[in-house]
């Protein structure tokens, strides 16, 4: 069976006519399969949602319990029939609960990666590569200049800066879902045993991570009155908060930002970041290439990000590839490296 008969592109997103469902639809649809909880992939208002238990929990925290007409838990590795196709959720290593979706029909297997990464992350299951005929990948960091260093070494930079500047508060910009908790877990592994302070926008999700069995140590929500007393402490906040009046009350704050975009100096400079931490929840260039080769796919579709370069590289490897130019998560918010997300968007971010 031809892959394009199994998945087609619609304005709502990828659609499987045989199964009667969309994957990560950007507008309300009758049936949605959702790879992970970032708001550009997981939106409210669908008739029914099939996703991992963690993703469903994240959506409930963000949108309220009635975010969809009906929900169904997809257990990792379990094959679920959807109309005339079989689907299976497999860990993607992106954030807690993130999954790739394997879709099979007529002897053809497609894998929708959602967002995924291969680097170390103590807060979620590692990515599992599934061999397939068609691999549908993201390419957020699909340029060879993006090579993410070991995230632990980047957290070491933060710890070293805390030692160097004990009189200054360290504000670490990090997306509220996934990146924040990963930085916190890595800080704990690095031996940071002080309380970790968080911006109010992160409270619910940090609590959910704890509830779902991801220990973060002592986490304290910053009270307005306490800001001036937090010299030498780590404060995690949405990236945009660093530019806001909220940040001014901290003692001589060091502006840090945990993001794959920090690899390019101009990006860090734009936002006045002093301590760039190159930590990403997406694959870097080498990992994208390695993942594509590991799947053995003869055909690659690129959903969003720097698709041109990855498509070009696939061509040099004799792999047929095409960009989908998907809007909705291709070109909006932090997925495109737009660091200037307005404060109103802090609870609706994606996460490099």
């Amino acid at each position: 069976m031809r892959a394009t008969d199994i998945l087609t592109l619609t304005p709502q997103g990828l659609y499987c006519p045989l199964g009667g469902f969309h994957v990560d639809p950007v507008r309300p649809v009758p049936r949605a399969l959702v790879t992970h909880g970032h708001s550009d992939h997981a939106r409210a208002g669908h008739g029914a949602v099939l996703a991992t238990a963690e993703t469903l929990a994240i959506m409930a925290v963000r949108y309220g319990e009635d975010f969809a007409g009906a929900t169904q838990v997809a257990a990792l590795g379990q094959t679920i029939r959807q109309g005339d196709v079989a689907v299976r959720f497999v860990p993607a290593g992106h954030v807690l609960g993130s999954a790739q979706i394997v879709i099979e029909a007529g002897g053809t297997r497609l894998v929708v990666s959602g967002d995924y990464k291969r680097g170390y992350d103590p807060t979620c299951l590692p990515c599992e590569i599934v061999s397939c005929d068609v691999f549908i990948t993201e390419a957020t960091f699909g340029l060879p200049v993006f090579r993410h260093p070991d995230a632990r070494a980047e957290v070491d930079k933060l710890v070293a800066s805390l030692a160097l500047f004990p009189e200054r508060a360290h504000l670490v910009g990090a997306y509220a879902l996934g990146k924040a908790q990963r930085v916190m877990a890595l800080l704990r592994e690095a031996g940071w045993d002080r309380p970790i302070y968080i911006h109010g926008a992160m409270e619910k999700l940090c609590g959910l991570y704890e509830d779902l069995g991801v220990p973060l140590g002592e986490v304290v929500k910053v009270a307005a009155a306490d800001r001036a007393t937090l010299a030498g402490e780590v404060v995690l906040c949405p990236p945009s908060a660093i530019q806001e009046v909220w940040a001014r009350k901290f003692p001589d704050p060091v502006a840090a930002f945990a993001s794959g975009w920090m690899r390019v100096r101009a990006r860090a400079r734009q936002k006045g970041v002093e301590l760039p931490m190159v930590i990403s929840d997406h694959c870097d260039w080498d990992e994208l290439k390695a993942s594509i080769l590991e799947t053995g796919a003869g055909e690659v579709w690129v959903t969003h990000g720097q698709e041109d370069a990855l498509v070009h590289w696939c061509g040099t490897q004799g792999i047929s590839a095409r960009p989908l130019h998907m809007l909705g998560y291709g070109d909006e918010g932090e997925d495109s490296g737009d660091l200037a997300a307005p404060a109103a968007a802090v609870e609706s971010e994606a996460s490099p």
Partner: protein
Amino acid sequence: MNAFAALLDRLVYESRRNAKIRLIADYLRATPDPERGFALAALTGELSFREAKPNLIRALIQERCDPVLFEMSYSYVGDLAETTALLWPAPADAPPESRRNSPLPRGEGSASRRSARSAAHPVPGHNRPPPPSLSEVVETLATTSKSDLPARLAGLLDALGETGRWALLKLITGSLRIGVSARLAKTALASLGEMEPDAIEEVWHGLAPPYIDLFAWVEGRGPRPVSRDPAPFRPPMLAHPLELEDLETLDADGFAAEWKWDGIRVQAASFAGTTRLYSRTGEDVSGAFPDLVAALAGMEAAIDGELLVLIEGRVQSFNVLQQRLNRKSVSNALMTKYPAHLRAYDLLAEGAEDLRALPFAERRARLEAFVARRAPERLDLSPLVPFASWDALTAARADPAAHGAGADADAVEGVMVKRLDSPYVPGRPKGLWFKWKREPYTVDAVMMYAQRGHGKRSSFYSDYTFGVWRDAAGGGAELVPVGKAYFGFTDAELAQLDRFVRNNTTNRFGPVREVTHTAETGLVLEIAFEGLQRSTRHKSGVAMRFPRVSRIRWDKPTAEADRLETLEAILAKGETEQHPTGG
């Protein structure tokens, strides 16, 4: 090299001026000669290598990276040195950790807050040779033959981490673009000895890296270095823009005014057989203007003035002058066609006498006498603009042609207002000199294309091609591009414009996006510009000088943007002024 690279890397992320000065000063204090001297040369833009050029970097990286991927990466990052440093493959024998940025040095105080995990992922030891020093790098780049250079440079890059590679490549690409000016670096150097930065400027020309004597002097260990240059650069005095409310507090009687010519501010110095022409920033540009340099030889004076092209006594437009700019050398044909000229504003030194402490009125008298007595060819006096009141000056500024500038009025971009008692103070002192530019032209145009910027703006669509309406061949109206603007907006407006571009893209061509521009949809930009010229290179037949976005007209329907006829009218008016007989 690593200490210097770490300094550059810190400077990139530091936006506070005083903190930058401290970082540089700390580095200069802690680093021995000659290493720090080469660092100072790099920061002040004094290093240049005959053979090591950006093309060499391109060649090396393109041997190691797919050219298509290189171009995409370069377009994205916007900086050749950084692109190459990031793309450079780790050599086969490098330890796996070499992909990491080297972390900051761990402070002593960190132990109490850290557990025993510090050994969990240590940087593994290796027995590779230590990375090269900055002095070694500079020497290699300066002395290696052209044929050996690619291999030597590749070897240096293999021996360095990403930050080191980036810093090294920055030395080759020239402009560091790390937010540090030569002036700032000299200010940091001066702070080592609690000197004024201008004390450094005074001796700077004629000194060469690694500046051993200069450091000794600044640190109080040696005598003031003698500039061997008989015609040194004198740091120029600059003006503040005049605000209208200033006029209410200033007394017109205490000021003189002169035309602000639309050329290039330069300083000419000729003493004891040496004649030099300096740019405003102290760059020696004599090589591009041998015609002018030859004419000024022997004048035994230092003059502050405007570089212009004069043909038959008439000042040519900036567009004409541009033919002579940014050249290392110049052909005879070009010099004959576009002769360079100096229009004098100020006399800084005459013979052995330094005039800068004198009041402007006295210097002006000396200048007038100097020009009257011994003006060489290609030098004349910039006339004063007489005025009795600010209102009179306002009138002169609005219509220079009727107030003495005559046929050259098109080359006047405003007036300079100078206190009669002002000494010539280097830098931009407050309250002494003011510049008062003419009102710019404006036109409402429609954004048609947008391109990502470079450097600091590499993630933003910050360069906008805009167009105005004209009659289409097949009836109706069409937009024709008339120019490109990439500044004039605030950072917040840039973010809005960027968002508009991303949300209204109709087509993509590599780094360029076409944005919607119909009679019903699109964005109107008010564009300010200084002048217009006929152009065969532009589809519209006109080219703007100095276009910038003066306002974003979110409110204005695109159909109401201006038409090409509006520009044609401005052009026709300009041509009439330039050719009063109508010819």
